[in-house]
């Protein structure tokens, strides 16, 4: 059977909720819009996505000739029940012409090999994507038909590998619990994650713009802190916003 897939966005806005993985470029371009963190997703050997994740992220040697591949993504840290702050009252993207490459490429996902992209075209339960044959043909013979956005995002991911590897080396050197947390996350049936702070990335990458970025992040973190207060299900989000707001408060006043 020829793997032919049709897809048309119906602008239902349902994929504009929750955490959004970003390229480094998009993350810092939107530092005034999204509360930022870094999400580490470990993958065990044998997974079909392993080679690409090892290329785009990093690999960590474990005991007994085992290793983990880890994807490290700058991420808009937003609870899954919360809409993207750029989603307008009309349920359309308010920054459409200038939106992050992750949003432009949807529903494709260049963190996985192109030949596996067909699996990503099945809408999630609440999504209203049109995948009938009336929708445009978007995937054929294991290849994406309209591929500009996919290629651009993949290119950005490849270009940022060195800076993310330096960050990984830094975190593995200084965070005693990180490897164990990654091993623990990788042992879960559903992919687990480990979250690290923006302050650690700014330190590791010796970001000269740290103070300015912190000044942009601080009001956002305080806003999300208020929005998540008192909700038991969002306690972890709330605690992270609180912790990071303290760090950003320090950085935004630090003498450079």
């Amino acid at each position, binding site marked *: 059977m020829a793997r032919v897939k049709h897809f048309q966005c119906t602008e239902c806005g349902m994929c504009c909720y929750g955490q959004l993985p970003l390229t480094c470029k998009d993350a810092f371009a939107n530092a005034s819009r999204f509360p930022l963190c870094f999400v580490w997703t470990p993958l065990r050997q044998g997974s079909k996505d392993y080679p690409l994740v090892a290329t785009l992220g990093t690999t960590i040697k474990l005991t007994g000739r085992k290793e983990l591949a880890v994807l490290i993504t700058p991420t808009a840290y937003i609870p899954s029940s919360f809409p993207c702050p750029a989603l307008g009252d009309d349920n359309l993207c308010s920054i459409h012409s200038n939106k992050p490459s992750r949003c432009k490429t949807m529903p494709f996902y260049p963190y996985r090999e192109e030949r596996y992209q067909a699996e990503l075209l099945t809408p999630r339960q609440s999504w209203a994507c049109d995948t009938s044959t009336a929708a445009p043909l978007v995937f054929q013979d294991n290849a994406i038909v309209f591929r500009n956005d996919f290629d651009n995002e993949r290119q950005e991911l490849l270009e940022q590998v060195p800076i993310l590897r330096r960050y990984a080396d*830094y975190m593995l*050197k*200084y965070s*005693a619990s990180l490897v164990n947390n990654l091993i623990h996350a990788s042992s879960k049936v559903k992919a687990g994650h480990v979250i690290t*702070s923006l*302050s*650690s990335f700014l*330190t*590791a990458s*010796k970001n000269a713009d740290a103070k300015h970025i*912190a000044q942009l992040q601080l009001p956002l973190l305080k806003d999300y802190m208020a929005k998540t207060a008192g909700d038991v299900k969002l306690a972890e989000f709330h605690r992270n916003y609180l*912790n990071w707001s*303290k*760090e*950003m408060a*320090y*950085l935004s006043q*630090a003498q450079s």
Partner: protein
Amino acid sequence: MTLCPCGSTRAFDECCGPIIAGAPASTAEALMRSRYTAFANRTLDHVERTHAPEVRDDFNRAEAERLAEECEWKSLEIRRATETGDTAEIEFVVQFRREQHTITQAATSCFRRDNGQWLYISNTLNPQITQHVTKVGRNDPCPCNSGKKAKKCCGTTTELK
């Protein structure tokens, strides 16, 4: 007189105070103690200043400021301090309270003396220090030193203190 938070039982002004104010630490242990005290007193300029140059840029000051504020620093215990010429290794245990939990952390820090100034280089957590055997297995040597297996001697229900 204010007792020094480092646990030396000396006055702060005669212990870590002058070192935090900028006087050189006479020993690596004195520097170690003053860095702990700086965390307890939230005077982290001292901590940053006494990082060796090659690790100073790696110091996440914003995170350290948050931890210094969040934790209630209970105690520092120096287990072993070994100075060999211009290098030193210090084994220690810190105890602090954070989010209603008391945490005991054992670690070993390395130091180096550059132009008469002791500097901090690295830290290794070694949790094996905090592990204690509390139960004797059936086939383990009996704790009464009889040389027999525990199951053939005092039995295996003995709990060690």
